[in-house]
C-alpha cells in the first residue's frame, strides 16, 4: 500500500511538471511570435517615415499600449524613448530583462544609422498565471492520488477479504472438516480468485472421495477379514478342546492361538490407524488429568513389580478430545517406557500447561533413542533393531502419534539426557 502511494505520487508529479514546462514553452513561443510581429510593424514605420520619426511612433504606441514595452537608444547608447531599462539594451537578439513593470522578454535590433530598437512583452501576468496553473496542477494531482489510493484500497480489501474466506476454509479442512467449501460468487463473471476457489473446491471434492473410499475399504476389509478370523478362532477353540487328551497337540494349539492373537492385535492396530485418520476431530472437552491418572494407576503395579518406578506429576488440564483414544495413547507411551528400558528405570508422567498450551510428557532415564532413529521409531511398523527381540508390533508409538495429530497436537521424541522424552503438545486452549 505504501509502495503504491509512493508510485502514484511520483507519477502524478512527473505528469504535472511536464504539463507545466510544456505550457510555459508554448506561452513563450507565442510571446516571441507577438514580439517579432510588433517589431516588423515598427520596421515598417521607420522604412516609410524614416528613423528620425521612430521616437514619436514609440511614444505613441506606449501610450496606446497593446501589451508591448519598447526601448529606443541612439547609436552612442543615449536614451531616446520607451522604457529606460529596454533602451539600455545594446546587444542584438533575445534577452530577459527587468523593466519598470517587471520581467520583460525582449528582442533588440540594430537600426540603420547605429541606433538600437528593443520590443518586449511583459511576463508578469504570465508568471502569475503560471503560478495559478501550478496550484491547480498540484490540487488536481492530490485529488487524483487520493482517488487512486482509495480505489486501490477498496479493491485490495475486497480481494483480501475473499482470500481470507479461502484461507479460513483451508484452516477448517486442516482441522479435519471435509464438508466445507470455499465461497464462489455467482453474480459476476469468474475472476482469478473464483478460479482459485473452484480449483480448491475440486481438490477438496477429490480428497473427500478418497477419504470416503478409504473408510469404505477399511470397513470392507474389516468385515471381510473378521469373518474368516472369527471362523478360524472358533475352529482353533474346537481343536483345543478336542486335543485335551493329547497334551502335545493341545500345546501346539495353544501356541497357534498365541500367534493368532498376535496377528489379530496387529490387524486391529492397523485398522485403528486408518480409522483415526478418517474420522472427524473431537469437539468435547475431556479431563486430561483424570485420563492420565487412570492410565498411570492402571499400569503402576506392573511398572513397580518390574523394578521400575513411576512418578505422576499432574496439573489440572482439559483438552478437546476423545477419552478412549487419549487413554490408549498414554497407555502405549507408558508401556513403551516399561518395555524398552532396563529394570531400575525411573519413569515420569507429567500433565502440565506449557506456555498456555496443554502438554503431556512421558520421560524415562533408560537408554533413549538416538536422534537419527527417532523418525523410524514413529513410523508405523517401524521398529528399531534394538527392540526386535521384545514383543510388539511396532504400532504403539505410531498410534499414539496418530492420536496426537488427530487432536491437533504434536508428538515429539527428545533426548531426556539420559533417556527418552516423549511429549504430546496440544494446541493452546482458546478460551
Amino acid at each position: 500500500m505504501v509502495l503504491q502511494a509512493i508510485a502514484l505520487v511520483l507519477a502524478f508529479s512527473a505528469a504535472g511538471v511536464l504539463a507545466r514546462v510544456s505550457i510555459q514553452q508554448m506561452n513563450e513561443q507565442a510571446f516571441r511570435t507577438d514580439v517579432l510581429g510588433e517589431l516588423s510593424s515598427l520596421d515598417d514605420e521607420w522604412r516609410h517615415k524614416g528613423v528620425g520619426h521612430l521616437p514619436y511612433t514609440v511614444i505613441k504606441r506606449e501610450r496606446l499600449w497593446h501589451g508591448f514595452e519598447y526601448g529606443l537608444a541612439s547609436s552612442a547608447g543615449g536614451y531616446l524613448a520607451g522604457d529606460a531599462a529596454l533602451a539600455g539594451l545594446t546587444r542584438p537578439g533575445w534577452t530577459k530583462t527587468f523593466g519598470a513593470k517587471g520581467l520583460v522578454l525582449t528582442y533588440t535590433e540594430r537600426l540603420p544609422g547605429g541606433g538600437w530598437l528593443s520590443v518586449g512583452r511583459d511576463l508578469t501576468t504570465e508568471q502569475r498565471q503560471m503560478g495559478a496553473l501550478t496550484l491547480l496542477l498540484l490540487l488536481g494531482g492530490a485529488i487524483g492520488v487520493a482517488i487512486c489510493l482509495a480505489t486501490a484500497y477498496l479493491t485490495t480489501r475486497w480481494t483480501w477479504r475473499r482470500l481470507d474466506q479461502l484461507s479460513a476454509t483451508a484452516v477448517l479442512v486442516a482441522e479435519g472438516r471435509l464438508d466445507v467449501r470455499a465461497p464462489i460468487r455467482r453474480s459476476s463473471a469468474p475472476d482469478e480468485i473464483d478460479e482459485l476457489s473452484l480449483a480448491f473446491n475440486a481438490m477438496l471434492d477429490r480428497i473427500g472421495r478418497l477419504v470416503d473410499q478409504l473408510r469404505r475399504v477399511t470397513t470392507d476389509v474389516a468385515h471381510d477379514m473378521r469373518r474368516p478370523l472369527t471362523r478360524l478362532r472358533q475352529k482353533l477353540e474346537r481343536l483345543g478342546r478336542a486335543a485335551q487328551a493329547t497334551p502335545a497337540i493341545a500345546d501346539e494349539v495353544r501356541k497357534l492361538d498365541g500367534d493368532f492373537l498376535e496377528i489379530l492385535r496387529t490387524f486391529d492396530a492397523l485398522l485403528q490407524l486408518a480409522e483415526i485418520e478418517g474420522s472427524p476431530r473431537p469437539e468435547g472437552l475431556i479431563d486430561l488429568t483424570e485420563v492420565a491418572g487412570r492410565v498411570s494407576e492402571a499400569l503402576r503395579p506392573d511398572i513397580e513389580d518390574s523394578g521400575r518406578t513411576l512418578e505422576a506429576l499432574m496439573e489440572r488440564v482439559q483438552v478437546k478430545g476423545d477419552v478412549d483414544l487419549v487413554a490408549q495413547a498414554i497407555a502405549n507411551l507408558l508401556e513403551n517406557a516399561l518395555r524398552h528400558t532396563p529394570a531400575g528405570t525411573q519413569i515420569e508422567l507429567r500433565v502440565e500447561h506449557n506456555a498456555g498450551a496443554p502438554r503431556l510428557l512421558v520421560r524415562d532415564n533408560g537408554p533413549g533413542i538416538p536422534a537419527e532413529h527417532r523418525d523410524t521409531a514413529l513410523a508405523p511398523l517401524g521398529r528399531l533393531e534394538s527392540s526386535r527381540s521384545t514383543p510388539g508390533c511396532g504400532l504403539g508409538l505410531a498410534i499414539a502419534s496418530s492420536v496426537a495429530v488427530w487432536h491437533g497436537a504434536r508428538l515429539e521424541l527428545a533426548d531426556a539426557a539420559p533417556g527418552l522424552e516423549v511429549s504430546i503438545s496440544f494446541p493452546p486452549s482458546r478460551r
Partner: protein
Amino acid sequence: MVQVHPLRRRLPHAPPQASPAVPGRSPLRVLIIEDDAEVARNMADDLAGFGIEAVVLNEGGAALAPGMGDGPFDVLIIDRMLPGCDGLALLGQLRERGVETPALFVTAMGALADRVAGLQGGGDDYVVKPIDSEELSARVQVLAKRRTRPNNATKLTCADLELDRLHRKARRAGQPISLLPLEFRLLEFLLLSRGQPVTRKMLLEEVWGFHFDPRTNIVETHICRLRAKLEAIGGPPLIQTIRGAGYVIRDA
C-alpha cells in the same frame, strides 16, 4: 464424551420380565441374529457347552416376526452387518416395539464411533469379532443376570466378605480392608456378577474404562494385589481364576 457404562445403563426399576432366567434351573435362552450360518452355528454350539440354549436367525427381517425378537429370550445377540439391514436399525425397531431384552452386538464394525453408536442405539454391550466362547458366554450371562438381579443393592456380599457401596468400605469377617479406589471398583464389579465368570476384557472395559487391549497384564496384576488384601485376613480364597477365561468370585 459419553462415558458408556453398561452397569448403569439399564434403569434399576426396569420391569421384571415374564420368564426370569435362573441359572441352574431353567437354562438361559438367547436369540442369535447372524448372517454367516457357520459362525452362527458355532456360536450356538459354544453357548450350549455353557448350558445356554440358542435360536439362530440368518436374516435381520426374520427377527421382527412375532415370537422372535420379542420372544421369551434372555439376551439378543445381534450382528451389525446383516444383508439388507443394519443390526442397529433392527434393534431400534425392536426397542420401539417395547422389547426390553438385553442386546449384545457381536460385530465386525470395530471403530470407537461404531461402539458408541451401538450402545446409544439401544445395545447393552458391544464386542468386536472374533470373540471366543468364554467371552461370549460370560457376557451373555452378565447381561441376563443384570435383568433378574438388580444392581442397586447397597451391600454386596460373598461368604464373609462384605462391601458397603454407600460408604465405600470393605470388610472381611468383620475386619476392615483398606482398598484403593480402583481395587474397590474391581471388587464391586466381581461381586455384582458373583458366581459368574467375568473376562479380562470385561474388567478392562468396566473397571478401567479401557476399550483397547493393553499388552501389560493390568488385570492379572491388580487381581493379584486384591487377592492378597482379601486373603491377608484369613479364610478361603474367594477370587478364582478360570484358565483362559477370566475370574469369578464365589463362596468356596
